[in-house]
């Protein structure tokens, strides 16, 4: 099976620092692949390159059969690569529904409409409502986002990345800053998406990672030191060393 996402020997340097050191990765369709690593491992830089915000110094990225290495961020989004942000990046002055409709809008033709209100456009509102339902925010559809709690905003983020039925979900620490209960909800949601969506999950929450991932890659100092099933990663000595003092891997 051709991988949906193929990262080949990606390298990114900042002056003397090698932030991404010859990283290669392949994601099969329907796979939930988690990337873990200590702070400063280069996860942010890697995501930046996958999302199109950073240009790698060398290496290539193939998505859905096409080379997207030079494709700008919005182009990748239109091809089905949806990215969520670690720091919640929703639009506070809009309502939940408006936020998700906006996320849908990019995929439904051009936005040179000057007269018809977006909330009267069924091709935007219906998928938006469906995504909101999926993310569990149905009861807050018409609330201005400014009134939402942190956890609810993270749910909104999820709705926004799901609404256009992307091919790949690039999730940047979706559980950041969440309580145990809130994380549980997200894990539930991601479980329900497994198989239907291909997901690249960057996370610190080890319980979630080991519960969800089909495969786990470990990033340390820009290098991928291991890439295997959860069980193998758990047993991997190198990984233990990398994480010494950082976190206890779940038994």
């Amino acid at each position: 099976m051709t991988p949906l996402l193929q990262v080949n020997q990606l390298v990114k340097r900042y002056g003397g620092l090698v932030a991404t050191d010859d990283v290669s990765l392949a994601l099969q369709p329907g796979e939930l692949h988690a990337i873990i690593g200590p702070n400063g491992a280069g996860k942010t830089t890697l995501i930046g390159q996958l999302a199109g915000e950073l240009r790698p110094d060398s290496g290539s990225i193939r998505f859905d059969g096409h080379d997207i290495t030079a494709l700008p961020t919005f182009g990748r989004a239109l091809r089905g690569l949806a990215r969520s942000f670690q720091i919640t990046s929703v639009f506070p002055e809009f309502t939940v529904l408006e936020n998700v409709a906006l996320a849908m809008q990019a995929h439904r033709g051009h936005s040179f409409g000057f007269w018809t209100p977006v909330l009267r456009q069924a091709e935007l509102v219906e998928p938006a409502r469906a995504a909101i339902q999926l993310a569990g925010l149905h009861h807050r559809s018409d609330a201005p986002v400014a009134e939402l709690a942190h956890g609810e905003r993270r749910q909104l983020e999820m709705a926004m990345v799901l609404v256009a039925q992307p091919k790949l979900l690039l999730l940047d620490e979706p559980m950041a800053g969440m309580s145990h209960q809130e994380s549980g909800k997200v894990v539930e949601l991601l479980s329900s998406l497994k198989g239907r969506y291909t997901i690249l999950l960057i996370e610190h929450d080890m319980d979630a990672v080991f519960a969800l991932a089909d495969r786990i890659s470990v990033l340390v100092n820009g290098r991928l030191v291991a890439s295997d099933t959860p069980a193998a990663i758990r047993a991997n000595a190198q990984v233990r060393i990398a994480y010494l003092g950082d976190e206890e891997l779940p038994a």
Partner: protein
Amino acid sequence: MKPWRISQSVATAIVLLLVLLPLYARLAGEPFALTFGSRVLVFALAAVSLNLVLGYGGMVSFGHALYLGLGAYGVGILAHHGVHNGWLQLGVTILTCAIVGALTGLVSLRTTGIAFIMITLAFAQMFYYLFVSLKQYGGDDGLSIANRSDFGLFTLGSPITLYYTALLLVLAALLATHRLVHARFGMVLRGCQVNERRMKALGFSTLRYKLSAYTLSSVLCGLAGLLYGNLTGFAAPAYMAWTLSGELIVIVVLGGMGTVFGPLVGAIVLLISEELLKALTDHWMMILGPLIVLAALTARRGVYGYLLDWDAWRAQQRRAGKGAAP
């Protein structure tokens, strides 16, 4: 029974007063009121155009007076060469402003923040110097416009016609703004102001939409310039001066940026304030300056913005009072 909203009442009252102003001017024998009213409307139209990019798009353009000037010169230069047909002048103005707007926008939008502000200022200044050096069109002194724009069915030579044309255009622009901000284009523009990075991640080619908004805005401002030239009977480099660009920004913020009615309210408030201050002292700018500083420090939401806030607060109180979930 819909609850009473002060913002709506104020807006309605203003429109009513504006519609009736020429009547008052005629009855009270105050032609100045009509001229002043036209001036307010011209600046309101320019402010509506600026509000689009500044209030909704977050692009602080400090060079919008450029298009005001281009509009005036669109009339002036053509009239100078004997072309008094309003439609032709309109066409030339629209075309010129669109091209200049698109080109300067293309360069300016490669930057953000402080750089963007400075670059728009620099471009406007560049054109200012250009027109100063065009001696054949009056140079620094400007060009006088003897015959006003003739649109066939009507001509802008009559003060009343000019006034009602301006009023109609302002109201149309306000309506268009109201529709636009909730339509696809407006949502993208507003999204870009809040978080452009997110917008790109969602799949929007943000430059395309920001540039379109900027170009649209410059054309509308040019339209205001066309009216301005007809109002004053003059076109001068001073119409492109940075001071005028600054005044437009003050109007937009003072009225309430990012609100539909703000620009009109701002134009009324600023121009009336200026008249009052002028009556007080010759050195009225020494008072206006600090007032603007004060406004920048305190009055963030603008007059109409505060009215909207008050309505929202009262609505929230009502919801809480009824015991219903907010």
